[in-house]
Structure formats: C-alpha cells, structure tokens
C-alpha cells in the first residue's frame, strides 16, 4: 500500500500545472525578477538611459571630437570661445573654446565611476555594520546604530564637506566622502532586513539542523536581505552622483581641468544668462543619469517584491 501510495503521488505531480509551466521557463527567483523587471516600461526606459551613458563612456575616444592629452587636459581654443550649439559643436563651446560635447562625454566616465565606487564602498561598510548589528544585537547593536544615528542627523552634503576638508579636496577623496555619507542608510536597511529574516522559520530550521552562527548569517540570512540592498544601491548611485556633483560644484570634488559634470556646472555658472548651453548640457546629463538610476531602482523594488508579481 505504502509503495503504491508514493507512486500515485508522483504521477499526480507529473500531471500538475506547475510542472507544465516550469518546463518552458526556469522559474528561479533571479529569472523571475528579470522577467518582471523587463515587463516594467519605466524600468526599461531607465535601463535604456543608463545603457546609453555607459555606451557613451566606453566609446568616448571614438565619438568625441576633442580628446584630452596624457594629463587629462583638453586643449583650449580661445578663438572658439562661447560658441553657441552648432553642427560642429552640438553643445557649444565654453569660455576657453573647448567642445562642450566632448567634455560631457568624458564626464560620463567620471560620474559613473563616482556613483559605482561610492555606492560599493557604502555597501561594503554599511551592509557589514548592519548585518553585525542586527545579528549580534545587544550592546554591539546599540553602539553601531547610535553612531549611524549621529551620522544620519547631519545633512549629507555638510557631512561630505567635513570629510573632504579632513581628507583634502580631490576627486578620489570626494568619492570616499560620498561613500561614507551613504553608509548609515545601508547599515539601517541591512539591519532591518537581517532582523526581519532572523526570526523566520527557515533560519530556525537551519539552527535546528546545527548550523553555526556564521553559516546562518552568510548562507541563510544575508542572501535574503539582498533585495532591499539592491534597490537601495540603484537609488544610492543616483544620490552619490548628485552629491559628488555638488562637491564638484563647491570646488571640493574633482579639480579643474577634470570634466566632471558638477564641476562644469560650477565653473560655467557665471555665464548662465549669457551662454546658457554651458550649464544646460552638464545639468541635463546629471539629470539624465540620475533619473535613469531612479527608474531602475523603482523597477527593481517592484520586481523583487514577489507579492506584486
């Protein structure tokens, strides 16, 4: 009887609908998420925008009209100064006659680098602190989170300013500062989801089979906290780019002649009314990239939430 029971159950399974559906598409969480992401029109627009910027950044040496020399300096053509947009210079030229389009194209490399580097730094530091905090609890948790609270109580740009002043101005230091400023956000998100996951049955199940603390944290809890971290990361890149641009604008980030978008804005702000293209195109580029990351971030948030599937 028992043998035949198992058989009938198996055959029942083979006939089921879930079985039929899963043969066509692999239904792992990763592919499910991608499928949902690609059915979100705004997220596709976002991916298209980011894709464009990445492509521009990668192909800069071929598509730009003007190129920097080994020291990263664009040659000045004083006779071409403040030319409005035309066929030769689609974004016009700046005060010293550099081609704005070329500057913006090379600037894309810097902005992407800033965003990715700063957020990576923030994730590594923030997620570790948050995970330790949530998992250990007690005094450790209290100390870490109170420090995060103090950091979060400063306006981000002000805090970044303080850090840059300590480290000294420059693009790399600005990236570090922007990354550190984002740490509390990641620490909090990670801690909250670690706390949420730790109480779940599958974690108790893992402990019940004898898994140690390290295995429980890294093999079980952390992979399940990834969704909110990924979402926060894509939104965080946008913030980081803005913050870095703000530092550049204040003269504490990238230094001239780096074609960083924020710096371009700041250097040309005196000509806003006479030669608006000098600030319009760098500003538009910042907005384009930030919006792209925001759209992807929102799309990911929906795609990673199985309840909305």
């Amino acid at each position: 009887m028992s043998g035949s029971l198992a058989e009938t159950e198996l055959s029942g399974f083979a006939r089921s609908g879930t079985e039929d559906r899963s043969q066509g598409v692999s239904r792992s969480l990763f592919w499910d998420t991608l499928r949902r992401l690609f059915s979100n029109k705004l997220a596709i627009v976002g991916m298209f925008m980011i894709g464009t910027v990445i492509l521009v950044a990668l192909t800069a040496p071929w598509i730009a009209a003007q190129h920097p020399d080994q020291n990263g300096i664009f040659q000045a053509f004083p006779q071409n100064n403040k030319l409005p947009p035309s066929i030769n210079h689609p974004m016009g030229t700046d005060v010293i006659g550099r081609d704005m389009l070329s500057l913006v194209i090379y600037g894309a490399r810097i902005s992407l680098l800033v965003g990715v580097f700063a957020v990576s730094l923030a994730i590594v530091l923030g997620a570790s602190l948050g995970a330790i905090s949530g998992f250990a609890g007690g005094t450790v948790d209290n100390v870490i989170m109170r420090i995060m609270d103090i950091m979060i109580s400063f306006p981000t740009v002000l805090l970044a300013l303080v850090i840059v002043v300590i480290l000294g101005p420059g693009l790399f230091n600005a990236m570090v500062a922007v990354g550190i400023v984002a740490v509390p956000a990641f620490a909090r998100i990670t801690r909250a989801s670690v706390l949420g996951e730790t109480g779940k049955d599958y974690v108790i199940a893992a402990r019940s089979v004898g898994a140690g603390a390290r295995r429980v944290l890294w093999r079980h809890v952390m992979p399940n906290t990834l969704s909110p971290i990924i979402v926060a990361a894509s939104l965080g890149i946008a913030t980081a780019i803005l913050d870095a641009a703000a530092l550049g604008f204040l003269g504490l980030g990238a230094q001239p002649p780096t074609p960083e978008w924020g710096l371009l804005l700041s250097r040309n702000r005196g000509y806003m009314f006479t030669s608006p293209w000098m600030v319009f195109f760098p500003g538009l580029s910042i907005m384009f990239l930030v919006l792209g990351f925001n759209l992807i971030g929102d799309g990911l948030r929906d795609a990673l939430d199985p309840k909305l599937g």
Partner: protein
Amino acid sequence: MKELLRIEDLQTRFYTRDGVVHAVNGVSYSIDEGEILGVVGESGCGKSVHALSILRLIPDPPGRIESGEVWFDGKDLLTVSDEEIRRVRGGQLAMVFQDPMSSLNPAMTVGFQIVEALRLHLDMTERQAKERTTELLTTVGIPDAKNRLDDYPHQFSGGMRQRVMIAMGLSCNPKLLIADEPTTALDVTIQAQIVDLIKRLQAELGMAVIWITHDLGVVADLAEKVNVMYAGYIVEHGNVRDVFKRTRHPYTIGLLGSLPRLDEDPGTELSAIPGFPPDLIDLKPGCPFAARCPHAIEQCWNETPRLEPTETKRHTVACWRWEEIAQGVA
C-alpha cells in the same frame, strides 16, 4: 420558505501575467430566508472568490466577473449601480472575513467604527447609534460592552475581535450574512463559541448565513445545506445529512476519507486523495477532479459534468459515474 438569493452561472476570472486564472467556473445555487448554507472546499477552490463576486468586491483588474446573475431582493447585484451595491453591502447583505484584525481600522476605536457605520447606513443620531452599538456588542457576547466602546481593536482578543466584526455585520439587520472562514484563525474552544453564537443569532434574528470554510466538521455542526467546491465548480450540493451520509461525488468521498474518524480504529491508514488540485490557469475542459479520481474514465477527461439530481431530492452531484460509484460497480 422564500428564496433570498439566487446565483446563476457565476464566472470569475483573474487576468494575471502568468495566464488567465479560472477561479469560479459557472456556479449556480440558491438560498432561502433564514437558511444556513455551508460552502466547503480547499484553498483555491473558488469559495472565497465566489463570495466576493456576489458583493462585487473582486479587485478589477486583475479580476473580472465574466458572466452570471446574482438575484437578491429582486435585483441583479451584478448589474445595479455602484451606489446601490454599496447600500446593499453592510446593509441587507453583510460580510465577515477571516482576519478581523485587518478588517478593523487599528487607529480608530471599535465603538467609533460601528457608530460610523450605523450613522451612514441608518441615518441615526450619535446617541441612538451609540445605544445600538452597545446593544449589538452585548448581543454578540462581549462582556461589559458599554465600557469597551472606547477600546482599540488591538485591545480585544482574536475571538472578541471576530465578535466585533459580527456585530458590525449585524448592525443593519441583514437578511444574509456571508462569513468567509471566520473561525479559521481561532482556537477550537473559541471557534465553538462563535459557531454557537451564529446558531443563536440565526434562530433569534432569522437571518440566512453563507458560511465559507475548509472545515467539514463545522459545516456538519452548523449548516443545513452544503456546497462542496473544487477548482471553481460546485461538485456536490444538498442537505448536510445527504451530502455527509449519502456522499456521491468522489472528491467529497475522498475529503471525508482524509479525515480521521472517531469511530474507526486509530491505527488505520487515512485514505488520502493522491496528488493535489489542478492549476486554475488555463483550466482544461473535463472534470476538474479527473486527475486525482480513482474512478476516472475517458469521458471524465473530455467532458465537464454538470450538477444533476441524485436519487434523493435536493441533492445534486457533478459526476459522470455517480450512479455506478454509489452502487459499488465502478
């Protein structure tokens, strides 16, 4: 007895990304005034969706009521205006849900929520409404009701919250109460209290009840008639005694066999139904139970059986082979 509610060929589907979910597939039945009807079935059988469809509470999209008529009080609820259906809901036709905590607003006192409903539906003054609320809460067995009006939902226990929900449902003297798994989240001793309360209310107020549950025991205890649902179809319908004692549909037989019985030797193996319910996405024609049915033949896979009367009156079954199964030939 006068007919209170008649449902004709109700069909509800959900249009999801994975495909069309055939949740309710042509449900027809009627209920008389003052009658208690149990609707039993497992998760995903369409028992809750059919109840929500009656009140047009299906979220649209993705849900859509494809066809059917729901006659209540001389009107087809599926075609009346939005304003009219709102008057019916919570008025003549009340509904109680499984999770009372999520149907009560946690930020408002229980008294305020019932008083509001009364003033809205019955045009009462605040004082009248308060008196009536106290009366209702007392009716459903909440001790010291007067002093509990200013309590918030979280200050009530699960069983008491469900009583509050029932009091809310009763507030406008409904002719029909639809209760969707109202005791599933409760302990057995509390469930017994609620079942007892419903029996008393039905006797005192003469209202009809549609009790949706997965618990065959509660239906045997409470209901006069029963619908057994499977994959969006009613597969067996009749008086409780007929359905439980002269069971005709192989699914109902299997369901009853899956339950341990007090009068059998506890050591015997339960006669489980193999497999699990079909996927309701793109449900194929044919008997929905065929894949799990020990009696399935070619015909069962190809043609959907309709409800037809059995040898006793008021007992119908949707099975091609019920006669052979009843006679033990199949």
